């Protein structure tokens, strides 16, 4: 019984974090059709903000808010620096600039902060544990689960119940036309980046809370996870990203619990092969996004 509870909590807390990561990416990737390689660096920015403010004596919650704000700011900067100037040009150009921007931020952290891991302040509650039905679990995991549910609902509301979602897709597919209908396309696209940055900031706090330190390359893993989750779940659908996140957590946790030691080393190979298989079977991912308007 304790084992089962442990398993469920592991899946849910990991899945919640994964789903948030994926959601932040799918807003850019699924809706704007831009692959944002610099997404992981927003998480890094949140981490470094926490580190830089840690000596200030501010209450932790203020530092956390500042971290999220900085992630939002850098999300918007990403738009200005890497996307806006090349958006109209070519898909490859966009890909390369975002890759370059990611490199830029990482190396700026190396240059201006330090190549070495830096500690981030964590509230007392992050290192406390509770026992649920015999399974000992860090409270942090429960916070992750709660945060993911709240934020998923909030984003779903924003995209479903307001014209924002439609306006984002319109601005992304035909920028000038969107403006000619009165849609403030630049603002809309920047707001998508801001939203993505917001999610990255929250994920950053939760994710870095697991590790306790921040290094320039800290965003790499969340980026990969977000990528896979998005692909599995459906590249163009918000619920898809969420489903993909939880599914990936389920797969990872199951493999963790069941794979023998020798095979476990190849876990990533299994996971990614699965990604390839899913894409071959359903190039759109498990959950189809809104129908596409391609025709001959």
């Amino acid at each position, binding site marked *: 019984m304790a084992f089962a509870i442990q398993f469920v909590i592991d899946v849910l807390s990991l899945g919640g974090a994964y789903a948030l990561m994926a959601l932040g990416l799918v807003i850019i990737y699924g809706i704007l059709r831009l692959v944002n390689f610099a997404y992981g660096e927003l998480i890094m920015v949140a981490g470094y903000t926490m580190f830089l403010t840690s000596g200030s004596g501010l209450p932790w919650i203020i530092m956390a808010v500042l971290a999220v704000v900085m992630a939002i700011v850098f999300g918007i900067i990403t738009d200005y620096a890497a996307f806006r100037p090349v958006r109209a040009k070519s898909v490859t150009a966009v890909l390369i600039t975002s890759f*370059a921007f990611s490199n830029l931020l990482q190396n700026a952290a190396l240059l201006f902060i330090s190549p070495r891991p830096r500690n981030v302040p964590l509230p007392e509650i992050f290192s406390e544990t509770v026992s649920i039905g015999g399974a000992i679990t860090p409270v942090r995991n429960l916070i992750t689960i709660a945060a993911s549910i709240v934020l998923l609902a909030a984003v779903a509301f924003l995209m479903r119940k307001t014209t924002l979602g439609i306006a984002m897709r319109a601005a992304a597919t035909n920028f000038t036309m969107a403006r000619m209908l009165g849609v403030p396309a630049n603002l809309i696209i920047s707001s998508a980046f801001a939203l993505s940055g917001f999610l990255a900031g929250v994920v950053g706090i939760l994710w870095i809370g697991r590790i306790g330190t921040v290094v320039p390359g800290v965003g790499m893993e969340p980026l990969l996870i977000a990528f896979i989750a998005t692909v599995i779940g459906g590249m163009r659908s918000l619920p898809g990203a969420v489903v993909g996140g939880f599914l990936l957590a389920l797969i990872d946790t199951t493999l963790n619990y069941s794979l023998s030691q020798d095979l476990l080393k190849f876990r990533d190979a299994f996971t990614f092969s699965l990604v390839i298989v899913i894409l071959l079977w359903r190039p759109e991912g498990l959950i189809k996004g809104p129908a596409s308007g391609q025709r*001959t």
Partner: protein
Amino acid sequence: MKHAYLTALILIAVILIIGVGSQLLGIRLYDRIATNLLISLVLVVGLQTFMGNSGLLSFAHIGFMGLGAYTSAVLTIPAQMKGMALPDLYDFMKVVEVSPLVAMLAAGILAAVVAAVVAYPLMRLSDAASVITSFALLVVLYTIMNNWSAFTNGPRTLFGLPKTTDMPIAAIVAAIVVVVALLFKESRTGKLLRASREDEVAAAALGANIPHLRWRAFILAAFIAGIGGALWGHFITSFAPKAFYLKETFLIVTMLVIGGANTVTGAVAGTVLITIAYEGLRSTEGAINATSFGAGQVIGLTEIVLALAMIAVMILKPGGLFPNREIGHIITRARRKKETTA
């Protein structure tokens, strides 16, 4: 067709200049940089054969390079070294020791075979799905290299490869690869593939078998990557799987895209340009570090400047320096124009 010969001639001349020039200077470091550049050239031009002609971004290229490097390593590390360098190697392979040239060919072939087997189903995909599957393929290849201790010594540094790659060998291989890439581009497969790059639906409506065309290009690219990997392995002589991952992928994709993915000229130009920029920046960084003695080290400046340059190039010339036409083509056109106006 005539301009293709001219292009080949010019590009081979560039390779010669790099090679001979680095020797004339007589500085060992330049020799090393030049050799490195020529090896990168092999890889970037190899990537161009697939990416340029099919228009699909491929992240897996470096993975095949790694495959080649490890294959050649296992085949050439002296038997008495293997106990130390590859402690977990399968027994029957411990006695194998072939000449690096044979091993290089084997590396290319193995990479091509692996590519042929794993890539066929992937070639149906386009756009984002294909970018991400190739990304996934890179991670799979990397994970395997990182964990298959018997063959690669796991994440640890593999050493003991005989140092057989020098500047002339690299130059010869680079020249051959450039010619192969140009021939492939003008071949029937190449032309049809380029048509599919521009418009998949229209190309299919003409009767082009797109997945099959892509598959052929992918195998060729993997073959070249395998050769390039072996070449590199015998130059560097010790390396770990990390050498075949994102950073390097980024570098060769950057070289190709800045030069212009659609042309072999672009691949060559991008490689030369980025290598020079990279080395120049690195030595500047070194110089800065030497002066600010004791003060904070300047780290990552090279990458920052390079990233900024890349963003700038993408904004100004999104198709790269040679977006559509090979150098030979540009020259013949310019000459013809002058004749007609004169």
